[in-house]
């Protein structure tokens, strides 16, 4: 099992983790990569924001709809 992965590989794993639990080796590889890579850390944060946005959107679609406006 290769522990050092490229950004492209780590990005693919981060995307996959949105839908499924990663195998142990992959999880370890991501955890080793992120602290030393600003770009992938940012990408991971973007995914986190997208996940939060989806969650908010579900709530919004049920309650607020098209009348909602805060501006």
């Amino acid at each position: 099992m290769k522990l050092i992965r490229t950004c492209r590989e780590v990005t693919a794993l981060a995307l996959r983790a949105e839908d499924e639990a990663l195998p142990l080796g992959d999880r370890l590889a991501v955890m080793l990569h992120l602290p030393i890579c600003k770009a992938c850390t940012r990408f991971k944060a973007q995914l986190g924001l997208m996940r939060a946005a989806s969650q908010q959107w579900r709530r919004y679609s049920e309650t607020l709809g098209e009348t909602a406006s805060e501006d």
Partner: protein
Amino acid sequence: MMSADFSSQLESLRPQLLKYARLQLRNEAWAEDAVSETLLAALEKPQAFAGQSQLKTWLVGILRHKLVDQIRRNSREMSLTAEDGEDLDDLLFKPDGHWAEMPADWGDPEQALRQAEFMRVLEACVDHLPGQQGRLFMMREWLELDTTEICKVLGISSTNLWVMLHRARLRLRDCLQAHWFTGQVS
């Protein structure tokens, strides 16, 4: 007895239900059917609404089930949707696997999510996903089905699903970057 008020409330919520049905199914006729089935179910069992705080919440709950029914019914035709195979990965990364460009700092999620305008941008970006990618993304994020259920309902392999969700999320990220975060964050 059915009150006229209840009927007119249902009618007024129809366009919003249709919007989500279209986003999920990407087919006008199927979307119309799913919404009609939803309203019919509501009219047949108005007593089921008693005690629920929000009519819309209740209707969206029914719609979710009707959408899954439609997906199951039309899954074969859905899988025939032409898929554009363009992989964003090739643009995002250099041949050696490094990022071609540093991903942007999207800042504080709270700040973006507080704004109703952001929800409209998100919906527009989901709408722009290619047909089957859009359906799969909606099944995962809006219907909240897990990957096993999605594969079962559509009769696709988990590898296929994973590839499509991967593409959908990268596209969505690209769209949000272009239409929300560019110019928002200093």
